[in-house]
Structure formats: structure tokens, C-alpha cells
């Protein structure tokens, strides 16, 4: 670029712009304001070379003053112009003049360079990003977007248009009042009401569409909007709670799904509203307090004649017996609803058909696509319908059906990726999501080595349903190694110790040891020297250990018998700890990109290591990649829920983290090391059992010098386990 650099002063510039009217004047004015040789000259020169156009150049020149930094601004703008076009550069200048942030240029030029198609979208979000934090917040937003969407322009556009929930989260600086913040609370609330634990999940925004605004119930999963935009933070909590209670009412009193048949969209919507009123009425009979929760959201007034307002009026009239509404349609709906047997789940369908016809005859317009159910706490009612059986008659109903299908499909937003690459991995199922689609268990951050920050919610851990194998294989495995088995058993027993051990005959303690006291007195009486240690004390001792064994089942473990050794090690461990009643959970993990870190539960803490668990262990197959950090974080989260004085994660692995969307394996090595450091801060011990030789270098990096043992042959297992237990007790 320096070769192109021509004029070093205003005079040179002016000479080149001679005869271009406004520009010539602007240069002269800028020279007067900012000095003839300031670095702005360089910036203006760069812009001139990049052919940003007269308007942009004028805008730049009129911004110039006698402070420093305009050279860099000009060069950045020129870069943006080259990567995108002059219009973008102009937009950037205008935004910059409006927002006045000198520090945002590196992020902006990066965006132009790496995602030119999303530049204007990203620029539009700059204001929000800067308002939420500062330039570094914006730079982070851009970095996350580029990293998350990779080389897929469609996904990048989604991200920078804020259609990706991740983008909204990053922009809002993590969420404080969205679904995530309320999730635990809602789960407990619904569990208390229902008596079983519901599956609550955030509703991923469908590609290219606005984020969900209502709850949706699909396949037994209750999907919640990520946030309720436009609702005040303190009201959001109540809204989530009202929505959860409504979904619970559907679960308590709802019936199986209805066939759509020849119903019109308006009728479908009305039947949904009637069903809402029915399940709510029954729920309030049982839980009268729910009325207090729902009432504030019924804000419809007895006025307005459009279909949506009439429907909202009907919803309120059915909910609130005292609501004064004399509109013929509302009166009729109320009367029919009042006469119906509410305990009959099929009672609402004929009523909806009837009043739907009435509303149709009133010639009010109803557009299913634009309609959103009111009040806001209700769900979209798509879960009531079975669209699969017969093809719907009208185009709107088809729209509804497609939306319904999308709900299920988008459950897993990793699937939104249309590329053939995901299919080539050889997944058994085609694109449309099946009911057994793995559930999202949690999202975890990941360490971004290049930028030195932790990326929030970067990885998604999903439950992979276990395959079952032949449980006798595990029995045989154990039977073939009776010696190993006995030794590991002995080891586990000896490592077993009490939580609080009572020590007697202590020199000091919290209580008198009466027996020791009496003995001492006897000694005194018989002329002996008393011992003097007459107290009792409590001392903690190692015990009460909860363990998670993480089993790496990635493709690489298929080689050199690594998986078989892991299986034997886990069998020995499970068998031994089962006998000592130490809780141990066995989790196998393999990943397929950051969105699908699969976790298979081979055995839960309280489950015995019986035939079921053994058959799941036998069913483990090697495949996919190793995202160790995410698996570790999840194991840690599971352990945190256990009440135990010691918590341990044992990682059976070949210590070769890798994943399809990570080019440098060192990223994952470092991420795993960080995950371990965090776990240790939280009081969880992590020890590696590294299978195979020659992995020592990476293992040291991940687990630390004394945090792992290597096992080359099965016969070494007991000695290595002994070694591990020794390390554990030494800490």
C-alpha cells in the first residue's frame, strides 16, 4: 500500500482534486481545521484510492478535526469499501459520526473482510452492542458471529440479523431475564404442580424468521421463547411462570392430539382457545390460586370487531365469568362453553366449529399467519393437532402444519445447517427431526485460545440414547480377569473410609470421653499414672466419594483396542464401587461439532451396575470426535448436584481431543485443561486414565503432570488404579 501512497500534504491532495468543486473546498476547510500535515491526509488519500465516492469522502472530510487517528479511520474505511462497496463505507462513516466510537474500526474491518454479505446487518447492531458494553463488546459480537457461523454466509446473515439466539445473548451480554435465567425455577414450579419433571427447553429461532413469541408444546417438550421482547424485566418472570402453569394445565387435562380434518384455520384457532379455557378452568378448580397468576394477562376490552380482538375478548370472557361483554359472538361462545362438559376433552371441537362458522359469516378477516395468540402466556396450541394424517385443505393450515413441523425440527437448531456435510457423517436418520432426536442437556462455554476468552454457551451437550449390547460380554470380561477384579475390589474397600470419624481418648476434644475418664479414675485409685486423654473428638476422613467416569468413545478409541481397555477398566471400577456402595455414574461421550456433543448415560449414580448398565456398556461403539472440555464441564455439573464430600471425575481417554469444526486440536487440549482447572476450583478432582502409550505429552497438558496415569496393557489396570487412589487420598 505504501507504494500507492502519493500526497503527503494538503497541497498534494488539493492538486489531485482540482476542479472537483465541493471536494476542493472541503479539503481546504479540513486543512484549516486539522492542520496541513495531520495524519488525516493519509486517511483521505486512502479513501481517494479506494474510490469511496464523493459523498463518503465529503462526510469524512467534514468530520476531520485536529485530533489524531483520522489516518487510521480513513484506511479502515478504504478497506471496508474495497471488501464491500462504497455504500457500506458511507454507512460506516455515518454510523461512526453518529456513535463517535474511535475504537470500533478493527472489528468493523474484520467484519467487512470476513463476512462482507453481513456487513450492513452487523453495522446495524453496532449501536445496540456499544450501548450494552463498549467497543470490546462489539468486537466480541463480531468475533463470536464469525466463529459461530464459519464459512456459511446464510448462517452469518442469520447471526448478524439477530435471528440466532446466540447473537441475542452475546449482544445482551448474557441474559438476566430470559428463559435461561428462569429455567430452574420453572422446572421446579411445574414439577410441584404436575408431580413429574417436565422437559422445558428454549425455543430456537427458526431460520430467517422472527424469534418465537409464544410457548409451544411439541412431543412432550415445552418450548419457551428465549425472551419476551417488550415485557418489562420484573413482569417477565410472572409471564414465564404463567406460561409454565398454562402448559402444565394442558399436560394435566389435555387429551391426545386431534386430526385437523377439514377444519379451517379460524376454527383451528378457536378450538385452541376453547381448549385453553377448558384446561384452565379445570386447573383452577384444583389450584384456585392460578387465577391470580393468569388474570393480569387478560387485558382484552369489550370493544373492537376484528377477528383477533374478538378472539381475545372471547378468551377473556371464558376465563373471567364477570367480564362484561355483550357482543353476540362472545355471548354465544360463553353460553356453549358454559353448557359443555368440561371434563370431556373432545367437547370443545364441535363448539369451535359452530362459533367458527358464525365468525366466518360475520365476514371478519382472519389471517392465520399474522395471528398470535393472546394473552401472551398461552402456547401456540399447535401441539393439540395432528397434521400428519390427512393433508390439510387450505394453504393457511398448511402453513400452520409447516410451522408445527418446524417447531420439532428446530428443536435442534444445529440441523438448520443445510449443507450435505452433516449427512455425510453417516447419521442414520434423514433431516426431519424424529421423536428420538437427542435432547439438549445443557450448553457450556468453551475457551477460545486465539482470542483468550471464554465463549459463552459455545458447546451443546445432548443426550445420546444408549445402544444396548450383550450384558454377558461384560460379565465374561470380568470373569476372565478374576485376579484383576479381586485386587480392584480390595482397593476400593480399603479406600473406603468414614465421613466423620469419632476419635476417643483424645488429649482435647468437644466432649468428655466418660469411659476414658472412669478408667483414669480407676488408675488413680489403684496407684497408676493416669493417661490424661479423656476427650472425644471428631475427625474427617476420606470417604463419601461420588465419581463420574467419563468414557471417551470417539473414533480414535476404536484403534489399538483402546475402547476395549476402557470397557474393562470401567467394568472393574463399576463392579468394585457397586460392592462398596460408592456412587459412580458412567458417561460415554463423543462429539460431532460443537452443537452436538453426545453424552450416553451408561449408568447413573444410584443405579446398580446390573444387567441394564452392563448391556449399555457393552453397546458402546467407537465413532465421531472428542470434545473433552464440554464433556468434562457436564460431568462436573452432574457431580455438583450430588451431595458428597469428595467428587471425582475419572476420564478414560486416549487424550486426543479433536472435532470436525476445530482445525487446531491444541484449541481443545487447552480448553480441556481450562475446564479441569475450573472444576478443581469448584472442588472436583479430575484424574485421567490415559489408554495407550505415546500420549504422555498431550495428557500432561490436559491433566497436569500428576493428574493422570497411562495404561498400556489391561494387566496394568489395578496398579494404576491403586496409584490413582493413592493420589486421591494424598490430596
Amino acid at each position, binding site marked *: 500500500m505504501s507504494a500507492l501512497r502519493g500526497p503527503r500534504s494538503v497541497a498534494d491532495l488539493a492538486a489531485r482534486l482540482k476542479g472537483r468543486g465541493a471536494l476542493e473546498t472541503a479539503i481546504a476547510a479540513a486543512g484549516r481545521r486539522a492542520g496541513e500535515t495531520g495524519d488525516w491526509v493519509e486517511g483521505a488519500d486512502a479513501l481517494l484510492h479506494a474510490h469511496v465516492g464523493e459523498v463518503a469522502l465529503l462526510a469524512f472530510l467534514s468530520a476531520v478535526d485536529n485530533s489524531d487517528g483520522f489516518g487510521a479511520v480513513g484506511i479502515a474505511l478504504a478497506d471496508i469499501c474495497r471488501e464491500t462497496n462504497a455504500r457500506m463505507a458511507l454507512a460506516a462513516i455515518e454510523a461512526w459520526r453518529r456513535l463517535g466510537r474511535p475504537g470500533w474500526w478493527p472489528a468493523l474491518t474484520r467484519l467487512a473482510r470476513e463476512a462482507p454479505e453481513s456487513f450492513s446487518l452487523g453495522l446495524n447492531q453496532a449501536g445496540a452492542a456499544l450501548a450494552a458494553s463498549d467497543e470490546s463488546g462489539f468486537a466480541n459480537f463480531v468475533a463470536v458471529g464469525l466463529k459461530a457461523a464459519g464459512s456459511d454466509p446464510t448462517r452469518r446473515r442469520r447471526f448478524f440479523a439477530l435471528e440466532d439466539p446466540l447473537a441475542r445473548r452475546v449482544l445482551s451480554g448474557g441474559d438476566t431475564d430470559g428463559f435461561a435465567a428462569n429455567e430452574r425455577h420453572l422446572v421446579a414450579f411445574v414439577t410441584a404442580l404436575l408431580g413429574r419433571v417436565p422437559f422445558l427447553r428454549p425455543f430456537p429461532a427458526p431460520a430467517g424468521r422472527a424469534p418465537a413469541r409464544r410457548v409451544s408444546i411439541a412431543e412432550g417438550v415445552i418450548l419457551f421463547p428465549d425472551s419476551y421482547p417488550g415485557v418489562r424485566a420484573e413482569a417477565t418472570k410472572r409471564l414465564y411462570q404463567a406460561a409454565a*402453569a398454562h402448559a402444565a394445565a394442558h399436560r394435566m387435562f389435555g387429551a391426545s392430539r386431534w386430526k385437523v380434518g377439514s377444519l379451517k384455520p379460524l376454527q383451528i384457532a378457536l378450538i385452541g382457545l376453547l381448549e385453553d379455557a377448558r384446561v384452565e378452568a379445570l386447573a383452577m378448580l384444583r389450584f384456585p390460586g392460578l387465577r391470580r397468576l393468569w388474570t393480569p394477562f387478560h387485558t382484552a376490552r369489550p370493544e373492537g370487531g376484528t377477528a383477533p380482538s374478538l378472539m381475545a375478548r372471547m378468551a377473556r370472557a371464558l376465563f373471567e365469568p364477570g367480564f362484561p361483554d355483550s357482543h353476540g359472538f362472545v355471548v354465544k361462545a360463553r353460553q356453549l362453553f358454559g353448557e359443555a362438559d368440561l371434563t370431556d376433552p373432545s367437547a370443545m371441537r364441535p363448539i369451535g366449529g359452530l362459533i367458527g362458522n358464525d365468525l366466518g359469516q360475520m365476514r371478519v378477516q382472519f389471517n392465520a399467519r399474522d395471528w398470535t395468540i393472546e394473552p401472551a402466556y398461552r402456547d401456540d396450541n399447535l401441539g393439540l393437532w395432528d397434521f400428519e394424517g390427512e393433508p390439510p385443505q387450505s394453504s393457511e393450515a398448511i402453513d400452520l402444519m409447516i410451522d408445527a413441523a418446524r417447531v420439532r425440527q428446530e428443536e435442534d437448531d444445529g440441523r438448520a445447517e443445510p449443507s450435505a456435510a452433516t449427512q455425510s457423517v453417516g447419521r442414520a436418520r434423514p433431516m426431519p427431526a424424529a421423536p428420538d432426536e437427542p435432547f439438549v442437556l445443557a450448553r457450556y462455554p468453551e475457551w477460545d485460545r486465539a482470542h483468550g476468552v471464554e465463549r459463552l454457551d459455545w458447546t451443546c451437550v445432548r443426550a445420546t440414547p444408549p445402544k444396548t449390547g450383550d450384558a454377558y460380554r461384560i460379565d465374561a470380561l470380568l470373569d476372565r480377569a478374576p485376579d484383576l477384579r479381586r485386587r480392584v475390589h480390595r482397593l476400593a474397600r480399603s479406600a473406603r473410609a468414614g465421613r466423620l470419624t469419632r476419635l476417643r481418648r483424645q488429649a482435647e476434644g468437644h466432649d468428655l470421653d466418660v469411659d476414658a475418664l472412669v478408667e483414669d479414675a480407676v488408675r488413680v485409685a489403684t496407684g497408676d499414672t493416669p493417661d490424661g486423654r479423656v476427650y472425644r473428638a471428631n475427625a474427617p476422613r476420606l470417604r463419601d466419594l461420588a465419581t463420574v467416569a467419563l468414557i471417551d468413545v470417539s473414533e480414535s478409541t476404536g484403534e489399538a483396542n483402546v475402547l476395549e481397555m476402557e470397557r474393562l477398566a470401567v467394568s472393574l471400577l463399576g463392579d468394585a464401587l457397586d460392592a462398596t456402595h460408592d456412587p459412580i455414574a458412567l458417561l460415554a461421550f463423543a462429539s460431532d461439532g460443537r452443537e452436538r456433543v453426545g453424552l450416553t448415560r451408561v449408568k447413573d449414580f444410584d443405579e446398580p451396575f446390573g444387567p441394564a448398565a452392563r448391556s449399555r456398556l457393552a453397546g458402546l461403539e467407537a465413532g465421531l470426535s472428542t470434545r473433552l472440555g464440554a464433556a468434562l464441564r457436564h460431568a462436573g455439573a452432574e457431580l455438583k448436584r450430588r451431595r458428597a464430600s469428595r467428587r471425582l471425575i475419572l476420564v478414560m481417554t486416549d487424550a486426543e481431543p479433536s472435532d470436525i469444526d476445530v482445525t487446531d486440536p491444541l484449541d481443545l487440549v487447552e480448553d480441556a485443561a481450562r475446564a479441569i482447572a475450573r472444576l478443581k476450583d469448584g472442588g472436583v478432582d479430575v484424574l485421567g486414565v490415559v489408554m495407550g502409550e505415546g500420549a504422555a505429552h498431550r495428557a500432561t497438558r490436559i491433566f497436569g503432570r500428576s493428574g493422570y496415569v497411562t495404561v498400556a496393557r489391561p494387566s496394568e489396570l489395578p496398579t494404576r488404579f491403586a496409584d490413582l487412589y493413592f493420589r486421591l487420598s494424598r490430596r
Partner: protein
Amino acid sequence: MTKIAPKFSDAVGAFVIPSEPYYRAVGDEIAVYEAAYRERLPVMLKGPTGCGKTRFLEHMAWRLRRPLITIAASEDMTAADLVGRYLLLSGETAWRDGPLTLAVREGAICYIDEIVEARQDTTVAIHPLTDARRLLPLEKRNEQIAAHPDFQLTISYNPGYQSAVKDLKESTKQRFVAIDFGFPAPEVEAEIVEKESGADAKLARLLVLVAERSRNLRGHGLEEGASTRMLIHAGRLARQGLPLKAAIESAVVLPLTDEDELRGALREAVDACLP
């Protein structure tokens, strides 16, 4: 039936239950216990806390006209705490019977509450009493006491959650006849709450509805759901004129959990039950 109070020594006289404690039978537990007592078989009462195990035993002791000696087991309890020990009395050692020994000698019902809390080496002290021998060895005195013909041993045991860590030894468990106590059916529980707290029938039913909410959270954040005892407490507070919401908050919600989120959710679920 007229009952003639049998004569007991001063040592156990204080343990006699003078009047009938209220107990609402839920199943055949009274018949089972009576049969076990007639055969002098040791009994194990299983069930969550506050579901009426202790009350049941008080009722049975009254019904069988035996003194009831209760021992609350704890981690710190030693075999000497059960059996007895030498004490120093004016410069000389003197043997002092423990509560178990007292019951064995005098023919009382000995009730060891929450036996899992005791250490396993303490628990084995009761073994010789629970089989055909019916003996209590006092090693320190080189003595064996044969149990009084009316002596009976009953333990309570809450299987709870951390059963892997705290569990009875198989060799202990298998010596007992077990009676399982769950929470009674809602109508029965409401009847009990009504009777014990003086609340009216409507309030009692509501309290049971509240209890169900908390029991739904058992294992999902809560260690245990609200016990019948808690509901009785809430009913009593309400009888004292406390607003219902405050009564439930103090008697049920606050004692159950210290965790903010869970407490919030429980409070809201309770609120959903209130008219």
C-alpha cells in the same frame, strides 16, 4: 374394655403412657404390630420423617400397656450409650444401666429412632436381642442379661435418598419384621390434620394439597416433601389467627429448603393452591 394398669418399678414407671394417643390406622399396621408383639418379634418401622411412626408406637405401647423407652440414635452414639457404663460415684466405680438395658430388665418396649444415624458397630449391639437368644451381653460386667418376657425392640428407619452411604447392614435388617409407613391417602391425611390441628375440613384438605406439591419435588431439589407433622403445625398456626399464607410459609416452605430458587418455586406452587 377395662384395663388394669400393671405395676412397674419406679425406674420405668415414668415411661408408661397414661392415656390413649390419637392414631388413625391407615392399613393393617396395628394388627401386624400386635401379632409381632405377641411373638416378641422385633419390628422395624419404615417411612419418611413426620409420617406418624413415633405416634404409632406410642399408641401401640399404650394399647399393649407397656412402658416405652425411646432412644434417638445419632452418629455419636456408642454401644455404651445404649447398654450402660461404669461411672464414678464418690470415688468408686458404679455401673449404670443404659436405656436399652433398662428396657431389657424391666420388660419395656425399646424404640430406637432413626437407627441408620447410629454407626454400624453400635447397631450390632442389639443383634443378640433380636434373635431367639433374647440376650443382652454386658461385656464390661462379664454378664448376660436375659430379656424380660415382655421386652420388645422396635426400630425406625427412613430409607431416604443416600441409602448407599447410610444403610442398615443386611445382617441387621433381616432380623426385623417391617411395617412400611407412607403418607396416608389424601382424605385420610386430611382427617388426621383436621383432628390434630383443629383446622376445619376444608383447610385440612387444602393443606394436604399443598403437601402434595412439595412431595412432588422430592428428589428434584427437596430431600423430603412436607410431612404430616408440618401440616399439623401449619393448621395450628392458622388456628391462632395467622393468615393462611403466612402459616404455610412458616410451617412448610421455610423449613423445607434454604435454596432461593426452589423456595420461590415451592412458594408459587403453594400460592396456586390457595383460594
